[in-house]
């Protein structure tokens, strides 16, 4: 996206990211910038490097080369306190990854207490508010195994947003869900988006991308081939690989 001179500085600014696993190069010098309040969707065939790119943005994956600024902090600098930087970057995973030995409320409270240093009472009321926000006010004291996949994912979203991140990363948040449970999670994401949260989403939910994304990035073979507003990427893709991918998706 062209950034004009008076545009706000992007919250996420990744440049020239390289990632190799032995002989396999997963990211070939990828750039990605995300403006405040923007919802960027990353699509592409499996193995295109989109999840790796997302996981680089909070350094769960260590890029071999490049730079990543999030909210003005250079994540890859050895001087950066990565634990402090990650407070500002929420992440939601395909497999939810709730802590099974804790209730929903405790899942949300853990980082509030141990990372932000909130008192028990304060953490408890923030957790309750976050769980109400994702529609789970009634289930706060259930363990993950007593919740459906969709409810677990909403707890995971509450766990992330309770820390008031500057940007939220979603790594295929609905891919592990039964179809009837997808809607609840997408509704929560839509509500987040409307509240002005900056979001980067790797997902196959094309209808959601069309409706909610500000910008769609198409990746293949570790490169960003094309990006633009959803109407352009889905309606008039420029690159042959993008056209082939969109055709394939539309057939489903």
């Amino acid at each position, binding site marked *: 996206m062209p950034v004009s001179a008076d545009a706000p500085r992007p919250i996420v600014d990744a440049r020239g990211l390289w990632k190799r696993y032995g002989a396999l190069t997963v990211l070939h010098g990828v750039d990605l910038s995300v403006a405040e309040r923007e919802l960027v969707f990353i699509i592409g065939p499996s193995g295109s490097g989109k999840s790796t790119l997302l996981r680089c943005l909070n350094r769960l994956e260590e890029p071999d080369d490049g730079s990543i600024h999030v909210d003005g902090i250079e994540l890859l600098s050895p001087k950066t306190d990565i634990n*402090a930087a990650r407070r500002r*970057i929420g992440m939601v995973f395909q497999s939810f990854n709730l802590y099974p030995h804790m209730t929903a409320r405790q899942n949300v409270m853990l980082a509030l207490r141990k990372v932000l240093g909130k008192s028990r009472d304060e953490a408890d009321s923030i957790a309750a508010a976050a769980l109400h926000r994702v529609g789970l006010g009634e289930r706060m004291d259930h*363990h993950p195994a007593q919740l459906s996949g969709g409810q677990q994912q909403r707890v995971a979203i509450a766990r992330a947003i309770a820390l008031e991140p500057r940007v939220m990363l979603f790594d295929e948040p609905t891919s592990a869900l039964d179809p009837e449970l997808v809607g609840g999670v997408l509704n929560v994401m839509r509500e987040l988006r409307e509240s002005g949260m900056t979001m980067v989403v790797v997902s196959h939910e094309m209808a959601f991308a069309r409706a909610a994304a500000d910008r769609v990035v198409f990746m293949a073979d570790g490169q960003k081939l094309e990006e633009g507003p959803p109407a352009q990427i889905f309606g008039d893709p420029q690159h042959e690989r993008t056209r082939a991918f969109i055709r394939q998706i539309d057939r489903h």
Partner: protein
Amino acid sequence: MSGLENFLFSFFNLKVMATYLPLVAQGLALTVLLALLIVVAGLALGLALAVLRSFGIRPLNWLIIFTVDLFRALPPLVIIVLLFFGLPTLGIGLSGFAATWLSLTLVLMAFSEEIYWAGITAVPKGQWEAARSTGLSFLQTLRMVVLPQALRITIPPLTNRTIAITKGTALGSVVGVAEILGASQSAMSFSANPSALTLGAIAYLVLFIPVVALGRWIETRFAWKR
């Protein structure tokens, strides 16, 4: 005497048993003390090694694996005898009690380290990633997210191994520790009647049946809600 009378005289001789009850009771007390010291030290050292191993420092891990394999491979009795008869030649004298405690502690440390380690590696990688993504440090994640889950899976094998190794306190009788078996054997020599051994067997049951039951209770207590 008939066969049955003979059997009862030899193995259930109440007079002999009454005479030597205090001696065997003392042995029971010594076994309890020895077992407690082994369990506390062995399980704590094993956990410490497993935590150190999770840092992934190569040379340190080789050292841990070598130590653990050594004490898992050697028969406990061999370790006891080596420490008891070998260390004095280096100028380090160990009592039979200390040699038995140290040997079985090292064996329990080795086996429990492997069990803890298996538990830690069985916790899915996504648990680490989720916790680290919220800003928790490596150690906070290990302590508050990974270990509570790892320990729950390790309780059944850990209980079994702990019981098996604490029963090895009987090996202390070889180096003169008057624990249950040692005390019973003395009593048997004094009385020239094996009933004292029966008393010893009863003492082991009195001690270990509650321990086995406790292990079962812990297993159910720590299974989390499904």
